[in-house]
């Protein structure tokens, strides 16, 4: 570790927002939509990979409201960076400015600020192998975003699991590939038995459940763990702990993608 980390390793700045798109809801029972935003990334910033994460604030630098958004696509020649995040609480009259959110109250002019890329993103295994995606609830957006970045010849099954709080789950519409399953966790795990590598995203209780059910398999399990996120975003403050078998790791610098088998749920 040395002070000579290249200045381009991290990037932070107010970025022009080129376009914004949204679809959803992605799961019933909640007022959640997926937002896709395209920014113009300056020359000095490093080229991010799909599945990596940026810390995003819709309120500009210094607002204190940030959360990680997944890279869906980066077009190197034009330097267009497309990120995905979800919006919840859109219907609230008084959006919670002290909470992490990415909604757009009426008349709101976003002032996007990005920092990143963060530590580890979702990275496909080096060898081609059968890939599974297992998403639940709004946080599944990261897998949807990731899936949109994959070429169609990747050997992949994606399952969108019903939100615990509702009877039915809606998969993201207009998904660019099939097969895509909206199902229960039991069905999903059956569906994914053939996969050797699975990326999982969902609330803590969901991750825990998946970890337990798959404890007997030797599938590689990559989990997006992104709750209680806050603080510095660069690994300096230890406000974003995630418990692992080796003690607390940092979501921002050591994650937000971890080996699901190493996570400890208390």
């Amino acid at each position, binding site marked *: *570790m*040395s*002070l*000579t*980390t*290249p*200045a*381009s*390793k*991290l990037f*932070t700045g107010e970025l022009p927002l080129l376009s914004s798109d949204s679809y959803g809801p992605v799961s019933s029972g909640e007022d959640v939509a997926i937002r896709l935003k395209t920014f113009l990334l300056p020359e000095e910033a490093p080229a991010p990979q799909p599945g990596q994460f940026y810390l995003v604030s819709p309120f500009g*630098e*210094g*607002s*204190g409201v*940030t959360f990680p958004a997944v890279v869906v696509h980066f077009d190197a020649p034009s330097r267009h960076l497309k990120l995905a995040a979800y919006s919840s609480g859109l219907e609230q009259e008084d959006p919670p400015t*002290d*909470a992490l959110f990415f909604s757009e109250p009426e008349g709101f002019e976003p002032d996007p600020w990005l*920092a990143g890329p963060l530590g580890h993103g979702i990275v496909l295994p080096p060898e081609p192998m059968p890939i599974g995606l297992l998403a639940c609830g709004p946080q599944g957006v990261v897998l949807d975003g990731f899936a949109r970045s994959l070429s169609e010849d990747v050997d992949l099954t994606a399952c969108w699991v019903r939100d615990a709080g509702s009877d039915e789950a809606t998969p993201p519409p207009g998904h660019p590939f099939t097969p895509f399953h909206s199902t229960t966790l039991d069905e999903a795990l059956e569906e994914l038995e053939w996969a050797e590598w699975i990326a999982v995203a969902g609330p803590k209780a969901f991750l825990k459940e998946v970890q337990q059910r798959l404890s007997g398999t030797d599938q590689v399990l990559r989990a997006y763990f992104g709750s*209680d996120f*806050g*603080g*510095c*975003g*660069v*690994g*300096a*403050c*230890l*406000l*974003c*702990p*995630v*418990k692992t078998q080796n*003690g*607390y790791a940092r979501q921002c*610098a050591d994650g937000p993608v971890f080996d699901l088998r190493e996570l400890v749920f*208390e």
Partner: protein
Amino acid sequence: MSQDVLQQTSVDLAVEVGPLKLKNPVMTASGTAGYGTEYAGLYDPGLLGAIAMKGLTRHPREGNRPARWAPTPGGLLNSVGLQNIGVEAFVVEKAAICAELAEKGCQPIINLACATQEDFIESVEILEEGCPAAAAYEVNVSCPNVKKGGCAIGADQNALASVVRELRSRTTKPLIVKLLPLVTDIVAMAKVVQNEGADGITLVNTIPAMGIDAKTRRPKLGSVTGGLSGPAIKPLALRLVYLTYQATKMPIIGLGGIQTGEDAIEYMLAGASAVAIGCGQFSNPRAPLMVLEEMAAYCEEQGVGSIRELTGGLILE
């Protein structure tokens, strides 16, 4: 850019915290800038006057269970619980960072947050040996986020005197004591450490506090109580700096809610010789540099030739 502004300014930015000489008055606050390199991808930390390292204990600590933070009006509630690698790993893994910072003229300050006097003594002995580049020790007797230790020493005049006395006899490096802010008589505590030969005081640490979620009826922090930092506490911290400076004229590192150059100037006017930025970095990771630039600009506007002149410069009529 920042580098340019700082090179071009006509203001003499150098300050002294007792025997500790800083090229400028801005440092990062312990626990908010890791072990000195975490922000290096964003700017060169060597530009700052000093970096206070994450609070160290004699042995590694795992820290408190999540949630470790919650936003509050104008502030941030946290309870990291002194997660750290321990002094032994520090001298192996991080002493080189201290040397590299020192070479750039940025003073590496070791924050020690031990639970007992023995731990404080052993830790300083290990660091004296293993981290010669350390510029000063910040003796943290005020961490609100551990069950026992720090706070207990910080609240007890005898225990505090004894720790400072023991450390004083073991190092010639500057000893700066980070006092407990939640005391009725801060001046009495400052005089205790002054009498034992401490070189300076840091005010303030986070202030003991808690958050409750009405809907779930649960504490917001995993550890129930934690410490409050950020702009919300600036008025409390300014008063402590002011009273301590008036009564003791000790060198003070002032902090608590600094986000702008003006905030920092307020601390200097109250009596601080240097200032630190803590959670202000979370919303603006380059806050320390920005604060420094704004301080220089303030001095230029106000015709202040040397920033040192501001210390204690509050006008009382």
